[in-house]
């Protein structure tokens, strides 16, 4: 029948989950409901403001990124001259970071779909990253953002490789935790491409053979294109000036720099000290307000300058991004002020810190969880 306008999806406006996470135990159902309404209002306020200036912003960023990419790759063609190598590599690294983070990640979230521009749209965008955009959208948008930090549901907790939570059972394999992470960082894009194939799901029978074949084919095509662009075509053209080898080192360096940076930023999103993980009981019966609570206490921000936020693709506003994954990234800074105020008022943790601190905290966890959980003192005594 005709009804009142409601918030969508499977999440109820009122009620409570089977178990409410520890950090939110002190809140009543009514308080969580009110918190949900307040955050909905924050979102609505941005939607009402969103317009021509936001559209101009993303087009400016795309233009800057393409200019940098064009200039960087062009300069690498003369990279037998040292200054050209440094300048070319630097510009290409910056371009790749911007392309993946402030542009690619956010466009693929549908943050700019409201412009109805087929050139800047989540259904048409492909990025300069090995994993095909569609595969990544599935594991990232559908699974990670929906099941954020729920152990057993969100495989982003360690990417099937690292032990990132004490609730994940320890195996001797986990002794290599720090080593695996150190190897992963410079080749991060290849790790993500492999992760997006969902091989464990396939082995567990959760992914069909047809889907697997489709994904393998897509990633195969993408690998060939990405690999030949940076490691064959660019050096080949550079050979005309006798810079072939140097250009190859340049593209290798640019990809490695981008991988290191993306890895560092992304690991700061959910792994630093202070972020929570959740059990399936804690999401069973989750209301819209509880969903917001889980996103806020399961994510961590990075504090810093405007440039810092820009270079992280505004993933430094991870908390805001998880509450409102499809709001345009240039709006997260103003949203953050309100979200932080709401967290303070409701007595919820709001984890943030400068990049070195957050990276350090993440590495500390990686080292700590390489070993089995220490038994509670009472039991060992």
């Amino acid at each position, binding site marked *: *029948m*005709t*009804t009142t*306008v*409601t*918030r*969508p*999806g*499977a*999440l109820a406006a009122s009620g409570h989950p089977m178990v409410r996470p520890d950090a939110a135990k002190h809140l009543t159902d009514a308080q969580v409901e009110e918190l949900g309404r307040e955050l909905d209002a924050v979102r*609505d306020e941005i*939607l009402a403001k*969103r*317009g*021509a*200036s*936001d*559209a*101009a912003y993303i087009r400016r960023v795309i*233009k800057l990124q*393409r*200019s940098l990419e*064009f200039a960087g*790759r062009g300069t690498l063609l003369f990279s037998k001259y040292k200054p050209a190598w440094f300048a070319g590599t630097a510009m290409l690294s910056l371009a790749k970071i911007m392309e993946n983070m402030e542009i690619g990640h956010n466009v693929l*979230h*549908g943050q700019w*779909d*409201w*412009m*109805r*521009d*087929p*050139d800047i*749209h*989540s*259904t*048409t965008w*492909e*990025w*300069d990253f090995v994993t095909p955009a569609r595969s990544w*959208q*599935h594991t990232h*948008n*559908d699974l990670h*953002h*929906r099941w954020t930090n729920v152990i057993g549901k969100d495989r982003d907790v360690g990417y099937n490789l690292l032990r990132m939570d004490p609730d994940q059972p320890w195996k001797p394999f986990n002794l290599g935790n720090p080593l695996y992470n150190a190897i992963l960082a410079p080749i991060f894009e290849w790790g993500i491409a492999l992760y997006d194939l969902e091989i464990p799901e396939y082995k567990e029978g959760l992914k069909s053979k047809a889907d697997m074949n489709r994904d393998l084919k897509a990633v195969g095509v993408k690998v060939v*294109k*990405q690999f*030949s*662009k940076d490691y*064959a*075509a*660019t050096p080949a*053209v550079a050979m005309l000036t006798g810079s072939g080898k140097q250009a190859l080192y340049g593209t290798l360096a640019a990809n490695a720099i981008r991988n290191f940076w993306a890895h560092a930023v992304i690991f700061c999103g959910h792994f630093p000290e202070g972020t929570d993980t959740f059990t399936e009981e804690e999401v069973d019966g989750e209301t819209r307000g509880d969903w917001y609570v889980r996103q806020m206490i399961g994510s961590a921000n990075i504090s810093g300058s405007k440039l810092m936020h820009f270079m992280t693709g505004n993933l430094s506003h991870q908390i805001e991004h998880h509450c*409102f*994954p*499809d709001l345009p990234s240039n709006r997260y800074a103003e949203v953050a002020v309100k979200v932080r105020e709401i967290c303070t008022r409701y007595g919820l943790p709001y984890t943030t810190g400068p990049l070195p601190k957050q990276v350090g905290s993440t590495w500390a966890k990686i080292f700590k969880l390489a070993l089995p959980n220490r038994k509670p003192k009472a039991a060992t005594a």
Partner: protein
Amino acid sequence: MIRFKKLARVTAALTTPLTAEDFLALFNPVYSSRQLRGVVTRVVHETEDSATIYFRPGHGWHAHQAGQWARIGVELNGVRQWRSYSLSTAAGHDPAITVKDAGAVSHVLVRDTKPGDVLFLAPPQGDFVLPEHPRSLLMLTAGSGITPVMSMIRTLVPRRPDANVVLINSNSTPETSVFREELDELADQFPNLTVRHWFTSARGRLQFTARTIADLCPDWRSRAAYACGPEGFLDDAEDLWQREAALEQSRTVPDVTTGADTQGVRTGTLTIERFSTDLTAGAGHDGGLVTFEQSDREVQADGDTPLLDIGEDAGVLMPSGCRMGICHSCLIPLRAGAVRDLRSGEVHNTPGQLIQTCVSAAAGPVNLDL
């Protein structure tokens, strides 16, 4: 062009996942791998509230036939909006649209467009065009309905001395009559064109009776007629031609096709041009009939069940993701009709717009491209 495409294919090895056009767009905005664009070259203000916008289209455009229209996209507060406009220049000339300020999109086009601006385009189309073989014509236009007919007159009259065109052009006043001076000049210069202005401020609404039309054009029955204007004007014209056809029924076997189609409905020898016939009439909280065009299914939906659920229940293979409006995995283009965003209550009804099926419900009849 062929050479450009070959070159683009070679350079794609260096530009993937982008294309050469994406980089060329840094230097010339007309380039795009996905979206036909044009650059505005000249804006001529015709009357107080109308303007002709000339543009240079990019690759992918084809020359228009007189009387055709094109979809034009402009941005309103950052959001791409599409409307259809008739091309008013003669066939074989650079394209231009003539727009009357009558809505949000036309307002921006008339008031804010300047040379150098980028327009988004779709190639010309439409079957409101001149007959293949020359014959006597009667053109009936009202208001901005003159635009496609102006293209026909500009194409035909100066080039074909054997043409014979009578134009009955209805406007409220001489000041609001687009192309009035040019029409009068053409009529002076070329004996094969007769222009009859009808100003409603002085003479009231043009009555479509056999007598009124005969006063303006005595041999109207023998002419191939074209009409373009507001709905009421076209309905009246259609009525007259149908009445005439019914009268002829006693003498001959009728040849009346009354299609429910959108453009170029033929009634006897009358060809009319209308743009609308959208399905938004039923907009309300009541839902409506949802058609999944490619899957060939129809479902009656209420106004508060997401279209994703409706489609899945009907066995349509729906793309889906988070089912709560955040991941944008479920986008499907709207072909026609209206949907309501269940979050904001906002109604979307732009054909071609991508809608989030998991948070959108029918707001009247809906036709989805899936």
